[in-house]
Every structure is written in C-alpha cells, then in structure tokens.
C-alpha cells in the first residue's frame, strides 16, 4: 500500500466496517434480548391459559357432581366421569409443559384429584344415590338422601384441597418466571458488552487514524509550506524534518529539485 489516497481510503473503510459491525452486533444482541422477553411473555401467557384450563376443569366436574349428588339428576352419572377425565387430561397437559421443579406440585395435585374422584366413586359404586332415589320415590320422599350434607361433609374438603393445589401450581408457574425476568434485567448490560467493546475499539482506531493522518500527512504539508515560505521570503534552505512517504515524499523531492535547479544552473 503506497498511495496516500489508498491509505486514507482503507482507514476510512476500516471505520465504516467497524461501525457496520457494531451496528450488526447491536441488532443481533437486541434481537436476542427481544426473543428472551418474548419467550418470558409467552410462557406467562401459556401459564395463565393452563391455570384457566385447570380451574375450568375442576369447575365443570364440580357442577356435574352437584347435579348428580345434590339435585339427584341421574343423567349426570356419566357426566361426572367424563368431566373428571377431562380435568385429569388438563392436569397431564399442564404437567407436560411445566418445569421439572413443578413436578412435586403436580404430583400433589394429581393425588388430591384422585381423592376427589374417589369420594364421588364411592358414592356411585355403592349405588347409594340410585337406591335412595328409588326408596325416596316409593316412600314419597320420606327417606330422602341429604345430598347437600354429603357435599359439605365429604366432597367439599376434597374439592377445597384440589383448588388449593391448583392455586399452588399457578403461583409456582408465575413465580418461576420472575427469576428469568430478574436475570434478564440484571444481565441486560451483557447484551450491550460486544457493542460497547466494538465502540471502544472504534474510538481507539479513530484516535490512531487522527494521529497517523497528523503525523504522516498534515505535518509534512505544514512543514513544507513553512519551509517553502521561508525560502521565498528569506532564501533559507528548504528542509522538511517530518518523515514523508508516498506522494508527499514525491512532492518534497519535486520542490527540492525546483529550488535547487536554478542554483545548479548559476
């Protein structure tokens, strides 16, 4: 690389490349960060959705049980089973999407859900309601089965336990997101580190560029100008102390030869 134009062009291009590079890195890092935030938000949305499903499942089951046991509607005998299966599948689905740390909570939920089913199954298997309903019809309602008492005494504690368990799963799912968000906010500066380093390198290169231009381009021109002025005004010898290269060296040599030629002719 000999020409001054080529040197300045390369210096300029290096700075442009670095600017482009730091821009590219910042875009890449911001994209990564945006992806992380998106993933946290979608996890949050999904966790809310799954919690809703679980609550919806247990509510449907509860409604079926109330109709079956309290209102003595025999049409709901199968509905209880279907609703439970639905609830159980929602638990399994939530479990499959949950983190490993939530596994004990899902075990607990599964257990209380089984207890809930057992309470209703006990009632159904013994066919107590059906029998009692028949007796009730025959006796004209004298031997009535108190579904509300059964609901309060047997079913409600199991239902409450299952609801609490769902609440625990929900709060765990939400709390497991907060460390990720916290980590992201704490390490946000990490994302800008490559950009920061690129900018520092660019500043260093700019300073070097400025220094080299001063030393190898501007200083010789200033000195040549001064020395030429001195020669014109006071006939002082033409001397340039700075190190000259490329076209500036040629210029210096040419000025030198122009000055020295008339002397030699004399």
């Amino acid at each position, binding site marked *: *690389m000999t020409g001054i134009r080529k040197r300045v062009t390369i*210096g300029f291009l290096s700075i442009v490349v670095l600017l482009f*590079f730091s821009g590219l890195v910042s875009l890449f890092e911001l994209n990564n960060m945006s992806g992380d935030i998106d993933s946290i938000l979608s996890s949050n949305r999904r966790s809310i959705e799954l919690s809703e499903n679980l609550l919806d499942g247990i509510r449907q089951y509860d409604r079926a049980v109330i109709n079956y046991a309290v209102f003595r509607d025999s049409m709901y005998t199968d509905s209880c089973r279907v609703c439970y299966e639905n609830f159980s599948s929602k638990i399994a689905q939530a479990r499959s999407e949950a983190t490993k740390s939530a596994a004990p909570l899902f075990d607990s939920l599964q257990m209380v859900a089984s207890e809930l089913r057992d309470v209703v199954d006990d009632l159904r298997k013994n066919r107590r309601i059906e029998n009692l309903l028949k007796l009730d019809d025959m006796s004209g309602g004298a031997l009535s089965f108190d579904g509300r008492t059964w609901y309060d005494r047997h079913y409600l504690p199991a239902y409450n336990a299952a609801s609490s368990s769902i609440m625990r799963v929900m709060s765990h799912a939400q709390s497991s997101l907060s460390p990720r968000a916290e980590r992201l906010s704490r390490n946000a500066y990490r994302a800008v580190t490559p950009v920061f*380093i690129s900018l520092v390198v660019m500043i260093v290169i700019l300073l070097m560029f400025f220094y*080299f231009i001063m*030393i*190898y381009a501007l200083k010789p021109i200033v000195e040549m100008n001064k020395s030429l002025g001195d020669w014109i005004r006071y006939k002082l010898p033409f001397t340039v102390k700075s190190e000259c290269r490329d076209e500036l060296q040629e210029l210096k040599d040419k000025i030198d030869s122009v000055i020295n030629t008339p002397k030699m002719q004399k």
Partner: protein
Amino acid sequence: MRYSVVIRYIGIVELVLAAFMLMSATISYVSNVDSSYAPLVMSSLLTLLLGAFPLIFVPRTDRISQKEGYCIVVGSWIVSSVVGMFPYLMWGGEFTIINAWFESVSGFTTTGASILNNIEALPRGLLFWRMSTCWIGGIGVVMFALVILPSIGKSKMMLSNVEISSLARDNFNYRTQTLVRIIISVYVGMTIITTIALKLGGMCWFDAVCHAMSACSTCGFSTKNLSIGYFNSATLEFILMCAMAIAGIHFGLIYGTITRKPNNVFRSEITRIYFAMMGTAALLIALSLWIADIYPTIFASLRHSLFQVVSLTTTTGYATADCNTWTPFAIMILLFCSIVCACAGSTSGGLKVDRLVLAIKMLRNKLRSQQHPNAIFRTKIDGVAQDQDMLNTVMVYIVAFMLLILTGTFINTLFGCDLLTGFSASLACASNVGPGFGEVGTLDNYSALPMIVKMNLSFIMLFGRLEIFGLIQLFFIRWWR
C-alpha cells in the same frame, strides 16, 4: 520517541493474539459450535483490525531505540491483557470487567490465579483461549511476534534484549535470530512431548493439549475445578512434574543438553541447586506431613509434597491437595519455594534461583572480606566471575521484589484480607505462582476477594512478570534520555 513505531510493533503482537483467538474459535466450532464461538470470532476480528490498522500507515523501521523497545515490550503486555479480556467479556458468565481483566492478566503473566468458581462451565473454545493466553505469555508476547516476523534488522535484537532479562542472557550466546528460534523450538517441542505423554497417561486430547500448554508455560490453569487432583493419577502427576521441572530450567541449557554443547543442564551449578532445593523441600514437607499424620504413609506424603513443591517452585500452581490443611512448617517451606522459584531463562517467574545463589555468594564474600580486608573476592557462577554491575542489579531487584510484596500485602490487608491471605496472595502474584494460602489456597480461587484487591493483584502480576523495572520505567519514560 516515535510513538507511531511503538504502536506498529504492538499491532504486530495483537495480530498474533488474533490468530490464537481464531484458533480457539476453530476449537469451539469443532466442539459443535459451543457458546464461545461468536465471542471468539468477534474478538478475533476486532483484534485483527486493531493490530492491522497501524501497519497500513506506519512504515517498517529497522532501528528502534532502547526507550522505544521498552515501550513496545511493556505496552504489548498491557495491550495484550486488555485485548485478552474481549472473549471473556463477550461470553459473560462469571466475567465482570474486573474479573475478565484479572483472568486475562493472570493468563498472560502465567500466574494461573483464577476468579472462576466453576471452570468446567466454560465452553471448550474459551478454555482453549484461556490456555492460549498462558502459552503465549510463557515465553513472552513479544517473543512470539519476533518468531513470526521476518528478520527486521536491529529492532529484533533490541526487542529480544528488552524481553529477556539480563540474568537470562548468560546461556544464550547466539545471534538474535538463532536465540529466538532456540527458545521457540524448545518451547514448542516441550509442549508437543508433554501433550503426547499426557495422552498416553490417560487424558483426552483436549485436556492433554490444554494441560501441556499450561505446564510448559508454568501457568497452572486447568480445565477442571479440582485441578490435577481431579484425575487422581500418579502417572499424570509424574508426567506433569517432569514437564514443570524442565520448564523451570534455562531454555539455553535445555538446548545445550539436546545438542550436546558444553553449557548443558548437567554442568550448570544453578540447575543442580534448583533440583537440590526442590528435593530437600519435598523431603522435609513429606516428613512433616507424615509425622503430623496428615497422610497415612510416607509415600503418600512424598507424592503430594513433591508435586506441590515442583508446582510452586516452578510457579505453575497446579494442585493435588489442599495445602491449607498442611502443617505450618510445610506452609513455610512452600512460601520459601514461592519466593525463590525456578531458574532464569525459563518460563517461570519469581526471584529465581540464580539471584538467590548470587546473593548468598555475595553475603559469603562480604563476610570473608571482613575477615581478610586486603583480599579480593569475586562472585562466581560456574567458575565465571560475575560483573559487579550485574551483582548490584541483583541486590536491587531482591529489595524491589520484597518491597513489591510488602506493598501488595499492605493494600490487600487495608481492603479486608486477613494477613495470611493478603501476604500469600501478594507473594503468589508477584512470583506468578497463582495459588497462595488462606482464602486463596491451592483448591480455592480469587473470586471472593474485593474488586480493589483483584486490581491490585493484577498489577502485582504485571510487575512480577516484567521484573518490576520494566513497568516502572514506563511511568518515567518522559524523563528518560
């Protein structure tokens, strides 16, 4: 002084670093493009740009002054340490700015002190870069650039003179070009042989290469949290002990031994004292440990004591045992080994056996001259009388080294370190050993120390590696004629 020339030569050193970063990126790529790939490629590009930029503008120079030589060498060490931080910072993890600076300086100065709590969490590319820093620093960052560069007149001689300490030049009676070739051939040869031996000893290729680089540069970085204790293999310990012990010998003597020259290892008084010192220290520590019932048998005591003595004397800093649990007598001997260290002209740091021997001989001559006031006594090494100027420099260096350790200890204790931790950390960093005692023991690390202490220790490492005067001169460069 021509700053542009200084910048040009520092730029050449940065190009060498960029090449090693690219090599580490290749390792990362081969290891299924681990998480260090992008940071290493980016760092390599930035370093390449930083190094190549001055080459475009500054013309090649055949002559450089001594002042410029000092600036190039010291500047190269400092700039390399700064550039060495890039991959660590970009990768993240435990590396904050202070931690990355500490790790980088520790690597280039071959100290081997680490701030990492979990080394095994680092991806392979970054582990290799960590080892590269110590391998480059082993023979000096400028020396690497000199090897790669074509002969550039007297500038090469000037730079090698500044980079190699005056004490080490004794056994290097060659032309600069030959000297540089000897150093690099011995260094690369040792690394290759150690790698093969470690592989045969049971390590995987990656661990073998990393540990060979670390042992031959007497750095002490390991790829495992438990250092060499992780492998629990007497064979590997023996191989590494041999590698460390040889890396602690003057490279000129190793070359002389291989080429059957008169100045060889067997004829060197310093080398004999170096091995005798290590043997005696290991034996005394083994006896102390056996009597204190720390290890069940004398052989187990000897195995651990010998490894730790060789490791600390050569300033490597590998560990197979927690020396904090050893007897105070054993700790005292290890502290002594950490001060004296290995031979001049090797990759090790510290005071060097040569200086200790000269100081003892000067002391003996002083006593004799008091007994015989008219007699003239000369201080000799291998039968050669030593120059008085050199002897004075040795004594000044010993005093400066002790002052450095004391100042370091003072600052460490000022910012909350206990005396043992503060003193041993300061000593371990000044001698480029790495592990100390107390909170910075052989199986511990420097992560828990306050930030100011880490900065203080990183500068002590640089002072120790540049043999104190090099770095001091940089602050007084304006007044230097």
